[in-house]
């Protein structure tokens, strides 16, 4: 190595030693905050996933043992069977209009009259808290589950305290990693 090259290297080394060498402490604080939020969110997601898994197992058992439908009540409500998980594109962000879904045929003593068919009304899809911490959804799966009405609070929807323990149907969007990202509620 020539003298000039050596001197240039020395100068570069000296340059490397000047100026700040580390990121300010603020950066560590911000990152630590984000890390904690993600851990908290993972805990919540694990609980939701547990509930979803339970719902899926229950649905599977119901199908396996072909539980006969309840006899129609006087108001003749129709129960829609839970659809199997289906692959779908990322959810439409806004779907204000009530979504009407033609019910599947149910086994009843008498076929339901048109007046007995209750159309489904769905809310928009709401992002679950801290869902943005996870990788963007590239391959979403939507599954239909039942949740306690109190779960609506999770996305900031009002809940009637008297009905908080009742169940409500929900479509949950799962990312490719199996982590829930969004939910909508269906009536």
């Amino acid at each position: 190595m020539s003298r000039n090259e050596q001197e240039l290297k020395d100068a570069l080394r000296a340059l490397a030693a000047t100026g700040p060498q580390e990121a300010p402490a603020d950066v560590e604080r911000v990152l630590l905050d984000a890390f904690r939020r993600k851990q908290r969110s993972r805990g919540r997601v694990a609980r939701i996933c547990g509930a979803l898994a339970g719902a899926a197992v229950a649905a599977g058992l119901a199908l396996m043992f072909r539980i006969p439908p309840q006899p129609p009540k006087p108001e003749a409500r129709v129960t829609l069977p839970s659809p199997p998980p289906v692959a779908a594109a990322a959810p439409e962000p806004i779907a204000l209009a009530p979504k009407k879904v033609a019910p599947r045929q149910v086994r009843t003593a008498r076929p339901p009259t048109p007046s007995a068919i209750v159309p489904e009304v769905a809310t928009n899809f709401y992002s679950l808290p801290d869902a943005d911490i996870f990788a963007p959804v590239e391959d979403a799966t939507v599954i239909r589950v039942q949740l306690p009405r109190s779960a609506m609070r999770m996305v900031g929807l009002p809940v009637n305290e008297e009905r908080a323990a009742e169940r409500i149907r929900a479509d949950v969007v799962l990312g490719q990693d199996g982590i829930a990202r969004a939910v909508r509620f269906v009536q």
Partner: protein
Amino acid sequence: MPESASDSSGDLLRRMRGGDEQAFVALYREHQGSVFRFALHMSGSVDVAEEVTQEVFMALIRDAKQYDPNRGSLAAYLVGMARKMVFRALELKADLPQTEPEDDAVDLIADNQDIAADLAWSERLEILRKAVLSLPPNYREVIVLCDLDEMDYAEAAGVLGCAVGTIRSRLHRARALLAEKMRAGDGRESTRCPA
């Protein structure tokens, strides 16, 4: 990177994925310096360096599984991420209307030829810093990685995704360019340290 450091990073990463906050802090403290310095020397801006450092580790928090240990060390992976973010930040900066003319190290050096001989060492380092920033990006990054951050050729090749031979030849050319700029700048043959 020494094997022990790599092993320690791998272990910390595993614990971090499991939610261990202390492991994340240790991992951050182990690698933030090299990420920050790389971004600083590449961009010449403390703000960009801070932002890039934050984004690199945020990405690690979001999805640590993206890192594949078979493709290189964690340090190389993090600096590689920083490299992409620095280029993106510099592109964005270039798109913004400039309120004042950009510093041009070569012009600065040429304009100051007569007084360069009297510059204090700190001023000479400032000229060198600007000369580094004025290098084309592919030469600048090898100078930053190998000479400023003292990364070995193999690891630098891992960061840049090229062959070790490419690193050698780029480094040779980059040093020659720098020496030329410095010679032109101070009218002397070399960048001599003060006695």
